[in-house]
């Protein structure tokens, strides 16, 4: 085989493997035991109250070689809210706040993912966030924390999202401003890979981490003294977004 032909064959093989790799993506199911949805909200300007949602489900599709093709879906059981105070939780589930019996789920469905330039492992995820039956297009900052084999042989991939939302934009206007309008959110989730691994899934190698994983902050999405401001990078939730109330 002469040299040009050999070069052409090698080039074609490389091109095909890149295309194939780009097309393959791994499906992940969210592991609820290693997923935390934590929020913080200002109380009377004197303190921040933190809480969490205990029930979450969802999944994502991820391709390391082509992050823009990824997809994320998340569903949170609104009635699983937990602020370590049973009566307050009951009130929060009620019509004055989440109205969990009427709007049982908080959900997010991604539409597109944009990698951040000059910030490897960080992305903007655009999609529809539905809270209290109100659907808004949002752009959430997402950071990939790492991926690799778990202790029982299952392959895992984890992300962190820290942002803030204004509850009034979702129709929850009760007791503003005594209870803050801006809510800081920290969503940290792990997914368990489903099915056979693709080439892109193992390209990171077992135990490889993308960037440095931040220390666990647990609900410190809002810093003290900065009334509910979001932490982390990325665009504000709801910026340039259009809201549309979900019809019943």
């Amino acid at each position, binding site marked *: 085989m002469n040299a040009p032909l050999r070069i052409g064959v090698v080039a074609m093989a490389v091109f095909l493997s890149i295309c194939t790799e780009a097309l393959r993506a791994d499906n992940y199911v969210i592991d609820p035991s290693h997923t935390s949805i934590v929020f913080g909200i200002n109380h009377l300007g004197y303190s921040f109250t933190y809480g969490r949602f205990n029930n979450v*489900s969802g999944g994502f599709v991820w391709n390391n070689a082509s992050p823009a093709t990824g997809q994320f879906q998340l569903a949170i*059981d609104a009635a699983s809210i937990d602020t370590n105070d049973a*009566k307050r939780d009951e009130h929060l589930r009620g019509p004055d706040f989440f109205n969990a*019996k*009427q709007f049982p*789920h908080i959900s997010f469905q991604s539409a597109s993912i944009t990698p951040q330039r000059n910030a490897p492992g960080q992305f903007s995820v655009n999609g529809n966030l539905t809270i209290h*039956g109100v659907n808004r297009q949002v752009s959430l900052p997402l950071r990939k924390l790492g991926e690799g084999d778990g202790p029982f042989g299952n392959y895992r991939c984890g992300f962190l999202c820290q942002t803030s939302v204004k509850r009034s934009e979702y*129709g929850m206007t*009760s007791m503003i401003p005594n209870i803050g309008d801006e809510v800081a959110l920290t969503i940290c989730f792990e997914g368990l890979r489903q099915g056979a691994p693709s080439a892109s899934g193992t390209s990171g190698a077992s135990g490889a981490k993308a960037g440095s994983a931040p220390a666990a902050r647990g609900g410190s999405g809002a810093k003290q003294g900065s009334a509910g401001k979001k932490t982390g990078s990325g665009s504000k939730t709801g910026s340039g977004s259009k809201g549309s109330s979900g019809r019943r």
Partner: protein
Amino acid sequence: MIEPSDLLLGGLLPAVAAAVVLAFVWKFTRHAGAAWSASLTVGYLAGHWALDANTAGFLSAVAKSFNPHEARDWLPLAILLSSIPCAVALAGKKGRVIAWLLRAVLCVFLPWRLLVGSAYLPSVSLSKVAFDTGAWSTPESVAWLSGISTALFTAWLFAEAENRGSVCRLRASLATLVALSGAVVLAMSGSFTYGQLLGVLTATLAGSSLIAIILRLDRGPESAAGPLVAVFGGALVLGHFFSELRLLNACLLLLAMAVAIGWMPPKLSQRMQVSLRCLLCLIPLTIAVTLAAMEFSATQVELESNPYLNFRQ
């Protein structure tokens, strides 16, 4: 937490609006039924929209009633629809038959509309999510909706059957008291929002009743049974299914309202009718308020027993 603006927008405004409309309609029509229906409808709508306008603007508040998002947003439309049978009933015997059919349809439509899309009667998309939201099975749905519809229709029927010419002061006063008690019970049962709605109804009834007594109308709020059942019954449905209002308390409150404005045996003397009405209204009302208060105070005791409350270093 009740703000001065809540008292103004949800109390004074609907009371004044209802009073003005009742006086105006009575003056020009001399028809007590039309006056009561119009005053309750306008008074309630004024208060409901004023409270919503506090956060969203008046036009948005009105628009929300015609493009409802939450279940409570359906109540303004419900009160408007409930006025239609009253108008149709004026068109002779055939009109009265059609009016009763419309009442039955509304009593079926209202609870269904309030609950559809919620955890009890989920939409298709909701039912696909993995969480157990406590959705009803088909027999449960039929049973619940039938029961609620029957209760609302019975209350409406009972109210419409009231004899004319009897003292309206007592019925108006009792109806206002029942609405106020309902507001308190709802607020103590975990929903200040729904308590506010019945607060608006209370103010509306108070304004209308005051003018009706001054003008010596011979008919009371039973002549606006439709709007009253729609709002009061609707609020109780919301309170039970979306808040923590107990079913027993909801039934007692609905019973109290039906007796407050409803039919009494005409053979009884006026004094006996008054006594019986008061007894049958105030007993269930007292039970409902007492049960709600006991539960509410029990939660307050839990808070005070927190050993860390007075922690000192």
